[in-house]
């Protein structure tokens, strides 16, 4: 009995660490550091709000999966019909492809920092690496290896702490605030960074991937509470990473008047404080975090397409047992790599992927909120008052963000000022 309880506790701890390590992808990294470099600590509150939001939506999607044991996109198609469901599918898949492209580009850039090899060659090698990794590695090991090794990014927490931030000020900025702006443009730029940072934390692939994974791992109603703990604690701890990156932006880059746009910039801060070992740990952590995100995005896109079209899906069996599903994730990875190979600037791909994700956020989270609260579908496990209220509150927030982001994108000249 004691052994079983210990095993359960260890399994929960492992899931928490995996969730923590998988919290940051390249968009969150770029916008967190950029926000700190431009606006000091003042955008910490966006990370807090985003973390609560993603935990709420993951809770809803995980609960739907545990209660119904039916794929989310199958439910969306049943409830909303083919055409309306197709709109959601197209929106989510486009965002997945672009965000996956951003991760592949970032991985190639990290490899370039270590090897000095040509960028495009490394993009092709990264594509081959991802296909082989997903093809041959069992799904739970993909999550564990990339999630746990992504925890090397904790080095950024150490860097942030060693820069001696003003903690009282950091705590004060955990609540929504507006710093004084010199010009109207500064205000617009603040809004742009706030929305982009929120979007990078609320990327929809996280919820869809975890819902499908829950069905694959046969999560039941009895798992709802431990899963809830995983989201809250894992994401809560995971949010320390973007907060640390923001602090590094404020305390390391801002005084030097640097606005880093690339992952190598983050590694540079670590190198300046901890030397080559620090730099290698930072690059390693970013690699596993971005690679894990790229794989989750590709699989998430394939889950959605296969579930919507009623194909056999799943990563637990061999690729042949769900051939069209396997073709879908390979196609998504190839499409993402092609986007990078067109020669678009990687930093622009990262920015545009986050902005596109913000635009489609309402389309992706609306069905979740509605299905999660629908008693005809969820029975007694329909969202309670708090989750329902939070779900709709965040839906309003992301709708406002989606409406505002394109005008801000143009008015701030892609965040340039």
């Amino acid at each position: 009995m004691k052994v079983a309880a210990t095993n359960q506790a260890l399994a929960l701890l492992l899931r928490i660490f995996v969730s923590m390590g998988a919290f940051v992808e390249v968009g969150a990294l770029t916008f967190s550091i950029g926000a700190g470099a431009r606006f000091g600590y003042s955008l910490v509150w966006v990370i807090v709000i985003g973390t609560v939001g993603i935990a709420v939506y993951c809770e809803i999607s995980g609960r739907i999966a545990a209660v119904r044991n039916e794929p989310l996109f199958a439910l969306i198609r049943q409830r909303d019909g083919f055409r309306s469901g197709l709109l959601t599918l197209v929106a989510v898949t486009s965002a997945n492809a672009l965000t996956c492209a951003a991760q592949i580009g970032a991985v190639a850039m990290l490899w370039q920092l270590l090897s000095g090899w040509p960028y495009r060659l490394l993009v092709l090698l990264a594509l081959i690496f991802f296909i082989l990794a997903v093809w041959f590695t069992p799904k739970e090991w993909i999550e564990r290896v990339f999630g746990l090794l992504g925890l090397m990014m904790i080095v950024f927490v150490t860097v942030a702490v060693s820069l001696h931030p003003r903690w009282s000020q950091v705590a004060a900025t955990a609540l929504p605030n507006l710093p004084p702006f010199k010009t109207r443009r500064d205000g617009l730029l603040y809004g742009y960074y706030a929305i982009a940072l929120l979007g990078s934390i609320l990327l929809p692939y996280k919820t869809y991937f975890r819902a499908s994974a829950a069905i694959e791992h046969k999560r039941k109603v009895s798992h709802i509470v431990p899963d809830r703990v995983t989201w809250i604690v894992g994401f809560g701890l995971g949010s320390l990473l973007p907060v640390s990156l923001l602090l590094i932006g404020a305390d390391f880059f801002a005084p030097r008047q640097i606005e880093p746009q690339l992952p190598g910039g983050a590694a540079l801060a670590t190198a300046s404080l901890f030397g080559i070992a620090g730099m290698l740990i930072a690059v390693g952590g970013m690699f596993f975090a971005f690679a894990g995100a790229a794989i989750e995005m590709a699989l998430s896109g394939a889950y959605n397409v296969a579930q919507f079209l009623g194909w056999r899906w799943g990563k637990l069996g061999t690729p042949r047992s769900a051939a069209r599903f396997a073709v879908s994730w390979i196609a998504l990875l190839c499409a993402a790599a092609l986007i990078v190979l067109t020669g678009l600037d990687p930093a622009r791909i990262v920015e545009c992927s986050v902005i596109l994700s913000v635009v489609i956020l309402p389309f992706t989270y609306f069905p979740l909120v509605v299905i999660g609260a629908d008693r005809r579908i969820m029975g007694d496990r329909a969202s309670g008052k708090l989750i329902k209220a939070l779900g709709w509150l965040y839906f309003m927030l992301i709708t406002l963000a989606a409406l505002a982001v394109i005008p801000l994108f143009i008015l701030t000249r892609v965040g340039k000022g």
Partner: protein
Amino acid sequence: MNRRGQRYLGIRALIAILALAIAAVVGVIKLAGASADSHELAVIVSVLRSDAAATAVLSDALARGQTGTTFARAQAAQQRRALDTSLRQLISMRVGAPLERGRVQAMEAAGRLDVLLALLERDTLRSSDGDGIAARSREVLSTMLAIERSLPQS
């Protein structure tokens, strides 16, 4: 209203929403294009300054043995590419004319950021404080180029 009527009502609403969205985007782009000259120049200076400072930190880290040469060179090259893109984007937003975009692309093909900046100065620095900003840009750029040239060759 029957189902067919409702469907057409939905299509009309969708067309109206799309038209409004297009009008809003066009309006916003025009508004953005009508902004003051000096602002773009200030942004360019800030982009250049940021890159120069990042290159200086990189060079410093290399000198102290905190990074390897491969890392330093690759990071400097990545920064340069990002800087080129930022400048091209700002120039095409500011200038907008197809001829200018063509010339900017030609400079890009030649891989000459300094020439790109000269083009920028000649064609776009016409505001009252343009000369001062141009001088600062030139100064920052030359510092940056000097630091980059000082990095050891692989």
